[in-house]
């Protein structure tokens, strides 16, 4: 257990992001409606929800990438974002991709360190097109982590990773949270992952936060797991089919 | 001298900007250098602008103020430009002999006289001497214009058209017509100097009205220098033709033809009343045939100096 690294943020830690009554629609399709959310610095929040329920839309709104149709968002100017796709610049080498946006001074060293941490230390000067799916995703993660932001928005950053690599990446992210204490919002479909990582787990449904859990505080992770799966509509019977 | 009755003696510049092309006096004057020396003696610096491919752009340059004199081209575009409103005046006229503009056809084409042109196509340069000559030739032979197909072609394009039989005849000036006659084995059907008893078109130097008023001294000096140049050319035909050939690059045979013809230049001052009357007649001829859009009084557009 690495729980020692992970202090539950005090109720009075400064907020990394605040959302009040957010509304977002694509034309007639209302995706987010009256959503409230606060994430404090140092807090790790996981976001679960059915495919297409609006998780990415929420993240994009927090990152200031989309206009919103109602409500209010208070967010830092520059959160770090891992998009659902890797979004590497095909014309830049890996280290330049990771260093994108860093001040030129010492950029290569920082990028090299970050790439080593995600297990790609030997491929600083390789092209993105030569990467496997999981490798590209790790480069995108490295790019976000070197930013050392106040708010870290992760959209399924581990989806293409095998179990072992995934655990390594978990450690990396938790490390960053412990050191720089950003607020983290992690979108994931893996309930185990949410339980293992998050201070707070949110379930999104109908355009708003439908449920909230604190796996580390009361009860057992196992109980949380069953509740969460039920909330996501999975009957345990089916799951083992 | 033509400067007999100077109205005023004005000048507000040291430099005169002359345009030139690959023919006639301007080229020889520019190549030989005596012209510049003569003007330098009067404190006038010569700036040569060119070469220009034909007359119209030189008129544009003078009208627009980037040159002071035309390069001694045909009077018809100059008259047209004046009718269109360009503030140009004639400063001097040129008459060269023999006149060599001609309508030619390929040997063995069965076209030997103007009446053979009925139903055939003839290449002419639009609104130029070539077109006028064809019109005059047809009129002289009593043939209706509609019986002959006018094909508008610029000289460089007309040559291959004639060579490959895409047109049956070509009405054109020197030296193009001379080169074509030789290279494509063609013969004259109608030769201006031989078959036409009046002039349609002369050569002329033009300047802007403003320049002629503000720099009458220079206009006079330039006219005098061209006269000197013409005198030299008339006296040194072989050297003159060789100078032209060197720049133009046509064959010795053609050059020798020109030498043989002893082409001479006669410069006519704008004060020559008889000449101006002839030019007026030519202008009226063009107006009557709708080549010039409006009547024009030539004597209103002469340099006053």
């Amino acid at each position, binding site marked *: 257990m690495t729980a020692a690294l992970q202090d539950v943020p005090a109720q009075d830690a400064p907020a990394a992001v605040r959302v009040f009554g957010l509304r977002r629609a694509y034309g007639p399709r209302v995706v987010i409606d009256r959503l409230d959310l606060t994430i404090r610095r140092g807090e790790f929040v996981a976001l679960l929800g059915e495919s297409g329920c609006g998780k990415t839309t929420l993240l994009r709104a927090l990152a200031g990438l989309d206009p919103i149709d109602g409500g209010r968002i*208070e967010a830092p100017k520059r959160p770090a974002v891992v998009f659902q796709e890797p979004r590497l610049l095909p014309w830049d080498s890996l280290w330049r991709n990771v260093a994108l946006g860093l001040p030129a001074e010492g950029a290569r060293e920082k990028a090299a360190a970050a790439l080593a941490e995600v297990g790609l230390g030997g491929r600083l000067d390789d092209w993105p097109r030569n990467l496997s799916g999981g490798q590209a995703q790790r480069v995108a993660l490295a790019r976000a982590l070197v930013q050392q932001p106040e708010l870290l928005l992760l959209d399924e950053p581990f989806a293409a990773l095998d179990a072992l690599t995934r655990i390594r990446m978990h450690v990396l992210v938790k490390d960053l949270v412990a050191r720089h204490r950003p607020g983290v919002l992690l979108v994931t479909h893996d309930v185990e992952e949410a339980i293992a990582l998050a201070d707070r787990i949110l379930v999104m449904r109908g355009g708003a936060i439908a449920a909230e859990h604190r796996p580390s505080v009361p009860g057992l992770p196992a109980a949380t797991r069953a509740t969460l799966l039920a909330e996501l509509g999975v009957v345990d019977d089916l799951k083992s089919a | 001298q033509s400067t007999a009755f100077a109205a005023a003696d004005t000048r507000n510049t040291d430099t005169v900007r002359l345009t030139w092309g690959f023919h006639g006096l301007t080229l020889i004057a520019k190549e030989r250098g005596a012209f510049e020396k003569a003007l330098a003696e009067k404190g006038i610096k010569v700036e040569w602008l060119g070469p220009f491919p034909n007359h119209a752009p030189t*008129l544009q340059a003078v009208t627009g103020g980037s040159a002071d004199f035309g390069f001694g081209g045909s009077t018809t575009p100059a008259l047209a430009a004046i009718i269109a409103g360009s503030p140009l005046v004639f400063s001097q006229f040129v008459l060269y002999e023999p006149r060599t503009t001609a309508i030619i056809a390929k040997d063995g084409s069965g076209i030997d006289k103007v009446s053979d042109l009925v139903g055939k196509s003839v290449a002419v340069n639009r609104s130029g001497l070539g077109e006028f000559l064809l019109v005059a030739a047809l009129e002289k032979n009593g043939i209706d214009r509609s019986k002959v197909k006018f094909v508008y072609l610029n000289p460089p394009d007309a040559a291959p058209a004639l060579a490959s039989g895409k047109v049956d005849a070509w009405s054109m000036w020197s030296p193009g017509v001379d080169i074509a006659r030789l290279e494509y084995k063609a013969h004259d059907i109608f030769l201006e100097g031989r078959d036409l008893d009046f002039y349609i078109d002369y050569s002329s130097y033009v300047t802007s009205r403003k320049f002629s008023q503000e720099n009458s001294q220079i206009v006079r000096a330039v006219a005098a220098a061209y006269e000197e140049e013409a005198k030299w050319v008339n006296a040194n035909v072989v050297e003159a033709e060789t100078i032209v050939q060197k720049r133009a690059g046509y064959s010795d045979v053609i050059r020798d033809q020109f030498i043989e013809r002893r082409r001479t230049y006669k410069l006519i001052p704008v004060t020559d009343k008889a000449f101006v009357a002839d030019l007026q007649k030519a202008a009226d001829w063009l107006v009557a045939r709708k080549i010039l859009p409006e009547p024009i009084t030539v004597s209103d557009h002469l340099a006053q100096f």
Partner: protein
Amino acid sequence: MSQADHTVTLALPGLAAGGSAAPARGPRVFGPRALLALSWLAPVLLVLVWEILAQTGYVTPQVLPAPSKVVRTAWRLATIGSLPHDLGTSLLRAAVGFVLGGSIAFVLGILVGFSRLAEALIDRSVQMVRAIPFLALLPLVIVWFGVGEGQKIFLVALGVAFPIYINTTLGIRQVDGKLLELGRVQGLSTWQMITRIILPGALPSILTGVRYSLATAWLALVVAETIGAQAGIGFLAMDAREFLRTDVVVLTIVIYALIGVVADSIARLLERRLLAWHPNFGGAAR
């Protein structure tokens, strides 16, 4: 919380709609109407300044006649003169040449973009011919096509061909290789491959080629109509130039410019229609 570090994003529709819809473009301060009006600002301003300069005698009419004079000339030529006939003749030539040259170039472009063998066989020759100016080609064209319509249409076709050819090959090279793989995996025939994947993917570039060549067609006519033409805008221009009819020369320039605008509108319309799926081309804001 530390307000200094934070920006407050208000619920304004100020940002471009839909993340990828207009990403590089800053906040949309002007609506589409305003932008349309703005786009006519420069041309209208130019005409106004020009009229004022001409009226005050700052530019002499022989150098640049006033717009009002040009309009009068246009009216005169249109009513008693041959302007409509000239315009019609040129339009027809441009259209025929465009269709001919465009289709050939398109096919060649597809071949070259598609196969390295075709590229080796064709591309170098095309690049060579492309560099030869029309004026220099004229004698040969006359010998081959005579001095009739054939020659003019050939020149237009030639002028149209190059932009379409080049941008078609460019477009095909820019088609995402991953989608081509997909096509192979889905068992598409060559024809389906072209129509379902390559053409749609290359369309932005191809339409740029079309946009370019719509103007080129007219430029080619200027040269083509110096030869054996009895009507047409190029003929009108040449004639006027020869006689220093500045007002007619400027009129032809204005006609060319207007044709440019029309051609451009056609190209934009095509883009809006055919690239509706493309976030940066088909957007309603254009």
